[in-house]
């Protein structure tokens, strides 16, 4: 028997460090949880994975009609449809991730109250499971690039950075909201509303230059603002305001770390109150 293995269970109060060793030990379970979420998401649906494409695609068509045709919002270069879709790809991922992960602990309350494993896996798994949808919608985007004969620029190498930023921002929000949701079910009603509002303070349907220069720094505090600008820069070669992007990327990191710490602090009470 392994006499080396020793574990001490003590009362937990206040801030907790993140236990990376444990996360490493259990990482297979995280993979299983992601795999489960992917597997069951579109079970017993007619269109299956097509839903992942339809959501941003239809939103793009509606937005280009309302904002481009009726309200005369212009893109910053590329055709408006391409412009809107490039923004909707990260935004759809973010909004779906935040919605899913904020409800994830409640949806998995059985796991929380009956077995032990690092709790962060539940909201994180919900976010990571949506990466497949993101990949599918990027595939559709590639097809649209071909259709519109819009060239790929070298800036595409930045895509992984912004992808990571989107994951961190979504996970950070998901961690805090899912933890709060355990005590306050208000979160369930507030999140869809907040996500809807978020669409308008993020330059998804309008280019950044519509925002007065002095407000742009403030806009960067919204992590998704920089991510959306970054996605457009990487995918379409649109002009990038690095100031906004920089602030946003820093915010993504701060949000994620703060989310992890807050989640760790609250997790010991989950099983008692869920």
């Amino acid at each position: 028997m392994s006499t080396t293995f020793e574990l001490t269970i003590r009362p937990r109060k206040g801030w907790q460090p993140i236990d990376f060793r444990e996360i490493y030990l259990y990482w297979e379970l995280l993979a299983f949880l992601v795999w489960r979420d992917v597997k069951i998401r579109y079970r017993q649906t007619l269109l299956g994975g097509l839903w992942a494409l339809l959501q941003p695609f239809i939103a793009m068509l509606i937005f280009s009609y309302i904002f481009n045709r009726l309200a005369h919002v212009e893109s910053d270069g590329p055709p408006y449809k391409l412009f809107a879709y490039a923004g909707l790809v990260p935004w759809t991922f973010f909004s779906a991730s935040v919605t899913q992960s904020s409800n994830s602990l409640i949806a998995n309350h059985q796991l929380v109250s009956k077995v032990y494993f690092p709790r962060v896996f539940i909201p994180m798994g919900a976010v990571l499971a949506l990466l497949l949808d993101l990949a599918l919608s990027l595939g559709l985007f590639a097809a649209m690039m071909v259709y519109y004969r819009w060239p790929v620029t070298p800036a595409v190498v930045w895509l992984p950075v912004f992808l990571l930023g989107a994951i961190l921002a979504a996970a950070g929000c998901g961690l805090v909201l899912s933890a709060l949701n355990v005590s306050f079910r208000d979160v369930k009603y507030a999140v869809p509303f907040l996500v809807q509002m978020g669409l308008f303070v993020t330059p998804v349907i309008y280019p950044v230059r519509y925002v007065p220069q002095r407000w742009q720094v403030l806009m960067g505090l919204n992590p998704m603002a920089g991510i959306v600008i970054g996605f457009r820069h990487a995918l379409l070669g649109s002009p990038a305001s690095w100031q906004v992007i920089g602030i946003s990327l820093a915010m993504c990191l701060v949000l994620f770390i703060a989310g992890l710490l807050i989640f760790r602090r609250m997790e010991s009470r989950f099983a008692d109150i869920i």
Partner: protein
Amino acid sequence: MKPILEIRGLSKQYQLGARSGPKMDNLREVVERSVKAPFHALFGRNGDSNGQVELPTFWALKDVNLDVQQGDVLGIIGRNGAGKSTLLKILSRITSPTAGQVTVRGRMASLLEVGTGFHPELTGRENIYLNGAILGMRKAEIRRRFDEIVAFAEVEKFLDTPVKHYSSGMYVRLAFAVAAHLNPEILIVDEVLAVGDLAFQKKCLGKMGEVSRGGRTVLFVSHNMPAVENLCSRGAVLHQGQLQFDGGAKEAIQYYLNSLSTRSGTGHLVELDGVGDRKSRLGPLLKRMEFLTGDDEPLNEGLLIGSRLKVKVHFDLPKPTSNFHVGLGFNNSYGQRIFTAHSVFDPNRWQTECSGRQVVSCDIPSFILVPGEYTVKVWLEVNGQEADAIEDAAKMRVLESDFYGTGRVPWNGTFVLKHRWCLERAADAR
């Protein structure tokens, strides 16, 4: 050698009614508190009570000390609410203790429920992998034992069917099969054998026996005393969050059974006024119980099996109502409910509106439970809600009698029934 599990001064406190906040008078206060509350939860010190009333608390576990050696199979027994599940939850790290500490020296797996994390939309095969991973198995380990698990569960034909189409029996078999193939050094099992059919229960008990003979350490919570006696080498008795007995399994069971009956009244008159251990939503309304024979004679020694029993219950009704009910529950010495008598079952029950002191009687023409000792729970419902309840209000003995008229005493089972035998085809021996 150091104990594989060392429990020191372990305590757990719960807050009661955490949701019943203070009365809020105006909208401004409601808004203010709801804005502040999430921040308290995020950043506030634990137990911060700024602007909040102190919530009533209770200790689910209080200063429990216990050493478990490698190879011990420890049965943890106690009545409902004694803290058994809380103890297992702390050991499984699902919840953290309020005070004290536990040192665990070995790989531990816990099974508080069979089929945790099973997803109805996934197939049997997929659920084996998912559930195995949730219980702490590695993918390679599951793959290695996959065929064994499938064979144990007897679901070969339905492996690729979503489990939502499984019968409940198949579902439970599959769930337990995964759990039974866990291979930890310390296994923690809550009352999970209460599911499944009898044959499968036996198979599971057999599997667990195998586990414990393999030198593994098992902590086992159950109300099934024969199973505890059969499987465990040691027993621990919890009562109201405290460890009251720690020793051999047989002795522990005896201690537990004795503790069940010590508090109970004897004789035909049982005064309920002073009983403290009760759940009284509307106050201590139940006052007295009387046990009588069919001829209204007091029942002192015990009731002969098959004879008539009358139980009178005295209680108060604080407000006039006609919607009140009385229930009597007869539990055997293992704490299992054998029979429930409830006024709701009687179509000709009272309809009159009453208040103040009431006496109702329950008349059982033939009491056919086998000889032995029974504890009686009594409760009162007013307007559809349990108003007062006493778990072990009284103790009652059923005595052997010549029920079948043959001079033979029934010795097995839980009740007797009149029955006849006849020889259908007699082949003459001439």
